[in-house]
């Protein structure tokens, strides 16, 4: 394989991973916009989605599409429970307290997953076939198309939801100004709950489509969640287009770095990018909100 087709190959795998990072970053953004909470348990939604669909599919009686929906629904309920039982009763709105609460929730969920499913990584059959598609000297597995397809559907659905439904508009109002939203009769608490539900649902969907490519274990959530957060910061925390851009950019950068520099340091690349962005331009590429610095 010559260098150009090698690079093409890296870019393809980068875009596939980047799509996942983008969806996770969107999950962060949805919750951050409605509550100003960074949900460190976001990656666990992705892990739970993957584990749930493996468990459901393992029965063999259900069609894959049905398992998909059921898994998303189950994780959505987890998201609602997370908001209802940890974020809402929290006495303090101090970021340190909220960070520690969601970190605690994330460890808790990971531990539960380990109790239920054990420590081994589990796999899932590809949605449709696994014979690779060749083009331009590189290969593409069909599951990558599923990942991209689901990502696009998720983004389009979110866009429709925010722009054309009354609940979506109410959520945007909350993101803009919670108090004013409350004054015009929007149930802010309900909107916060919806944002956790949405975020959990899209996280689960991302987790499900990626399982056939990467396998899933109880401990994958932490890295995926943190990378998604890197993507959200890279794009600009709170900006949806920024999250998507950040996700794809991070995925491609990481794949190129892993391929051309060192695969051992693959995970370090994302965090190096994160530190650079935080130190040089904490508002991210597309972020508009002023970041408080001293």
């Amino acid at each position, binding site marked *: 394989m010559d260098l150009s087709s090698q690079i093409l190959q890296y870019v393809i795998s980068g875009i596939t991973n980047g799509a996942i990072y983008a969806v996770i970053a969107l999950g962060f953004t949805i919750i951050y916009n409605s509550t100003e909470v*960074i949900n460190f348990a976001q990656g666990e939604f992705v892990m739970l989605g993957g584990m749930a669909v493996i468990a459901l599919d393992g029965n063999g009686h259900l069609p894959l599409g049905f398992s998909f929906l059921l898994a998303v629904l189950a994780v959505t309920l987890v998201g609602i429970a997370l908001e209802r039982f*940890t974020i809402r*009763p*929290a*006495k*303090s709105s*101090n*970021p*340190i*307290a909220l*960070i*520690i*609460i969601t*970190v*605690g*929730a*994330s*460890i*808790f*969920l*990971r*531990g*539960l997953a*380990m*109790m239920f499913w054990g*420590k081994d990584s589990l796999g899932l059959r590809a949605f449709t076939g696994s014979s690779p598609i060749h083009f331009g000297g590189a290969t593409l597995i069909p599951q990558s198309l599923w990942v991209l397809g689901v990502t696009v559907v998720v983004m389009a659905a979110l866009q429709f939801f925010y722009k054309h439904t009354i609940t979506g508009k109410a959520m945007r109002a909350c993101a803009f100004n919670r108090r004013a939203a409350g004054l015009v009769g929007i149930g802010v608490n309900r909107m916060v709950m919806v944002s956790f539900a949405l975020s959990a649902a899209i996280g689960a969907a991302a987790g499900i489509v990626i399982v056939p490519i990467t396998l899933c274990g109880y401990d994958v959530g*932490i890295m995926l969640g*943190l990378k998604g*957060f*890197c993507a959200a*910061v890279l794009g600009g*925390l709170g900006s949806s287009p920024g999250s998507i851009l950040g996700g794809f950019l991070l995925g491609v950068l990481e794949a190129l770095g892993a391929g051309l520099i*060192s695969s*051992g*340091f693959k*995970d*370090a690349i994302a*965090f*190096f990018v*994160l*530190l650079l962005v*935080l*130190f040089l331009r*904490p508002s991210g590429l597309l972020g508009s909100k002023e*970041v*408080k*610095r*001293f």
Partner: protein
Amino acid sequence: MIRFLKYTWFQVGSFGLLLALVPLVVTNRYYLNVMIFIGIHTLLVVGLNLLMGYAGQISLGHAAFFGLGAYTSGVLTATYKLSPWPAMVIAVVLTVAVALLVGVPALKLTGYYLAMATLGFGIIVYICFKELVWLTGGPSGLVGIPKLSIGTVVLDEPRTYYYLVWAITLGAIVLSLNIVDSRVGRALRAIHDSEPAARASGIYTARLKIWVFVVSAIYASVAGSLYAHFITFISPSSFDFMFSIKLVTMVVVGGMASIWGAVFGAATLTVLPEVLAVFHDFDIVIFGLILMVVMIFMPQGLTRGALDLWEKYRLQRDVAGGSLSGG
């Protein structure tokens, strides 16, 4: 008599006396080892508490400084045959340099951004421990770290090492108590309450935040060196993200802004996994649960929260008993 409890010298003196007596009663090696770990963790947590509890700056990557101390000591003594004490000093110098390099840009950030910056830093350092195989031995670890010795006396008995660790930790506690009680300590608490207000009253907040960050990194580095010479084998997994979280849990359980709380937190969460060993791997579920419950209901930490509850109870009892109506 109760008045004495308020004096720092009385607290430190009685705590030190208690610690000195422990090895006379406890001769079991396992218990002594646990006590040594409590000492090392206390050193870490007291340092982190200065940063988190007093100055209100979060660090989700403190395991990195612990690891830097451990690996610098380990590599210099095991690979390059340097004697341990100078190695420990070099480790501290290196840690200070790294802490400055990261702290200067990172501490300009607040809240979530600072949390993420320290977290990212911690993970990068962890990956370096794992991937720089020629230097650190990689995932399989670094072996052959010598025991510490003072003069010609090798501290290879748990009892002697216990005295060394706790002497250093007690020194660190005294230092912290003094810092907290000083002008600097009050300035740190002012930053915690409101950074703009602290600046307005003439506190050079940027420099002070970096200073406390570096101090807590030094504590962690020394703890790391002590750890490396104690177990004589180190591997990257002891310095991962989970360990940073465990340290934060110790601070939280012990109580933000309480030096003695830090001792309590370190002791509780070092002993807890030993007690919960029957559940072996499932201790992370319990860690998660503790973090959530304490932070939801007692954001000031367990000791502070328990004290608040006690105060409330006493107030209610007094009101019910009518003792307030008389005055």
